[in-house]
């Protein structure tokens, strides 16, 4: 039994959101959440490509320990610092934070709720352009003065450096604005636009995840906004709030910064978890195990995420008491995360598991996220973190969670919802090949970095001790594998767009609402507003 008695029979399948209106202008001025999602998808994939190139350059520069051995003499320390900063800024603010909510959230949230659109369609379009403006500012710094502060903009370095920090922080501020507007839209949509019968305990887990994410976006981003504004005020006027020369406390900056940036980590990972819930249930063809537990654990993670930011600052000069306080609260995040992991795995128990490309990515997520999550516990314990803080161990940990978690889910999501978005199937073989490369490449790249971190190699180093060289070389080779894997995924997407075979309304046999309308969905999502009678995962 699916969530609604299927409504697809009534649609002809000819009129859909892609051909509803024609011409470039109809796209640029659209208020249709599905078209906005596609525009986001294109921009985010472009920026992902740029950020990825920077990542490859960074890894390439680290192939050799000493500057005189580096195979590409163009990369000097200042260029390396810029590459490292651009990789961080692009990937965090332009790819991973907006990524899943703006693309899949925009496309699917209204459809999954049985709504015709998000609550504020024009605001939705505006937020896309605000995002683009921010991104343009950020990319603009490449041509005006560059940026070398890393994505964290730590004061007082960001006050003293001669690069164009003001422009970069304004870019991040603008993109934060877009993120607030998107989050606001989703919260109201979830509250107000659910189809009749669609109670909060009947919405799909992906919607729960996006909902929890939006709450964090609303509550955390403004603090980042004021922090970034203060940095520019600091540079332009010297107000002294974060500048120790003028009486400010740089550690207070870190408090403010991580008050946003730690919850931001969950802005990134929660939607990915939502995707995984959908993928695992569909490809195991089985009811999700512990719906309530997974849904509430999303909210629990969102709530606790605001209480733990100080674990980024155990050695930064915050008091010992605060360190211990943040450490114990951080441990609590592990509990809802563990609940989710166990529930996903039990969903497969006595299921009917099919390893299509999206499911492979979901499995990859579980594998990498397990490792990323467990090492997170190491870093959350004060005594261990003193040794690991700001070493490659941290780099490996958050790449396991961010890349291994978010990007695996993102790519899996693309392969899963591609038929719904474009009405065509992607090649499963290409999808699987890309997974093999991404997954292997990922472990080859980042597992050695755990060892490097344990050996004590600090992060953001251009030149490093020769003892670390072999592992760095393995890591660099791995990064090429990842790059190749994502290229194959891109080929799979383009091949699907150009020559993919036609997809039915529900190629995977899923039960959630978005599969009950035709592929691609019509302009108004459903010909008749559906009435929801059952939960989202009723595989009986």
């Amino acid at each position, binding site marked *: 039994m699916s969530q609604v008695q299927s409504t697809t029979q009534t649609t002809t399948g000819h009129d859909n959101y892609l051909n509803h209106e024609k011409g470039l202008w109809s796209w640029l001025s659209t208020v249709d959440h599905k078209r906005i999602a596609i525009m986001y998808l294109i921009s985010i994939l472009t920026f992902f490509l740029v950020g990825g190139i920077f990542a490859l350059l960074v890894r390439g520069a680290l192939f050799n320990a000493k500057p005189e051995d580096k195979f590409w003499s163009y990369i000097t320390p200042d260029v390396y610092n810029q590459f490292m900063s651009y990789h961080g800024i692009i990937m965090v603010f332009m790819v991973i934070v907006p990524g899943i909510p703006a693309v899949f959230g925009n496309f699917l949230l209204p459809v999954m709720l049985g709504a015709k659109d998000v609550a504020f369609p024009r605001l939705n379009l505006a937020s896309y352009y605000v995002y683009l403006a921010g991104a343009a500012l950020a990319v603009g710094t490449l041509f005006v003065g560059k940026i070398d502060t890393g994505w964290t903009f730590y004061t007082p370095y960001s006050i003293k450096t001669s690069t164009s920090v003001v422009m970069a922080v304004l870019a991040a501020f603008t993109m934060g604005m877009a993120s607030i507007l998107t989050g606001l839209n989703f919260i109201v949509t979830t509250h107000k*636009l659910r189809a009749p019968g669609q109670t909060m305990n009947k919405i799909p887990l992906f919607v729960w995840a996006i909902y929890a994410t939006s709450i964090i976006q609303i509550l955390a981003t403004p603090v980042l906004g*004021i922090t970034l504004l203060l940095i520019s005020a600091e540079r332009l006027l010297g*107000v*002294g709030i974060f500048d120790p020369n*003028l009486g400010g406390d740089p550690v207070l900056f870190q408090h403010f910064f991580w008050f946003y940036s730690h919850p931001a980590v969950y802005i990134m990972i929660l939607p990915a978890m939502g995707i995984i819930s959908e993928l695992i249930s569909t490809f195991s063809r089985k009811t999700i195990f512990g719906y309530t537990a997974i849904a509430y654990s999303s909210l629990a993670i969102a709530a606790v995420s605001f209480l733990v930011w100080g674990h980024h600052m155990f050695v930064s000069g915050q008091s010992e008491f605060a360190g211990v306080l943040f450490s114990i609260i951080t441990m609590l995040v592990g509990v809802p995360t563990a609940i989710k992991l166990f529930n996903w795995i039990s969903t497969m128990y006595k299921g009917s598991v099919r390893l299509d490309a999206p499911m492979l990515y979901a499995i990859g997520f579980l594998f990498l996220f397990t490792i990323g999550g467990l090492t997170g516990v190491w870093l959350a314990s004060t005594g261990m973190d003193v040794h690991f803080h700001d070493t490659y161990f941290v780099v490996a940990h958050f790449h396991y969670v961010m890349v291994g978690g978010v990007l695996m889910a993102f790519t899996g999501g693309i392969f899963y919802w591609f038929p719904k978005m474009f009405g065509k199937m992607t090649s499963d073989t290409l999808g699987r090949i890309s997974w093999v490369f991404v997954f292997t490449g990922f472990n080859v790249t980042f597992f050695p970095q755990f060892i490097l971190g344990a050996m004590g190699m600090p992060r953001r180093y251009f030149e490093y001790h020769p003892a670390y060289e072999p592992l760095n070389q393995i890591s660099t080779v791995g990064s090429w594998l990842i790059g190749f894997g994502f290229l194959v995924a891109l080929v799979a997407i383009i091949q699907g767009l150009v020559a993919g075979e036609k997809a039915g309304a529900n190629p995977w046999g899923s039960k959630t609402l978005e599969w009950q309308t035709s592929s691609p969905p019509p302009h108004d999502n459903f010909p008749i507003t559906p009435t929801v009678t059952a939960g989202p995962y009723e595989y009986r």
Partner: protein
Amino acid sequence: MSTVKTEDGHFHHAHHFNSLSHQYDSAKQGVWLFMVTEILMFGGLFVAYLIYKSIYAPIFHVGSSYLDVKMGSINTVVLITSSFTMALGIYFNQKNKPKQAVIALALTIVCAGIFMVIKYFEYTHKIHLGLVPGKFFNNPEFQQKVVDFINNMPIENLTPTLSDTAHMKKIAPLYFGFYFVMTGLHGLHVMIGAGLILWVLIKTANGKFGAEYYTPVEGVGLFWHIVDLIWIYLFPLLYLVG
């Protein structure tokens, strides 16, 4: 949002809502969510202010004595009055009286103008005296007063930070950093708010709103009251609490 008035004088809600009131509730919830972000954004500044105030009390004490309480009080009264007229603007829209609503909204904009003019005089006075944030600060008298204040403090109230008078002298401009950033950001909001009020004023005058549909007026009103609300806290913190 995309509500339109049809020829027979009724309003149509956007296609994805069930009814006008459904749309109104949703829009209002959206505005409230946005207000939360405003509160948190200013909140960041307030947190920083409170922390530094408790560490460097003398700077803030002497600093606030350099502000003109009279001007601050007038501005408070002006802003409160503007909040009142804004509420009236909504009220008259609810009662389908566009003429009175336009007057009330125009009064609100006038109040915003008065507020900004007074602010302008305060600013130019400060800038003239060199009482500006760190980079451009040029008023040794203020720094000396801070040092004198510390020297006159009872010895048991002195912390090691405060006893370092050379350092305190150096960081004394911090107060004006806060003053200009906080009032500046607030002033920016006043100007944005005035612009928004002008927008709903024109729409009201053109008969775009009425008892059935006045969501934008309500939304702009909420924004304006938040601006007022923030000033209600800013005023005593900057001008009065020494």
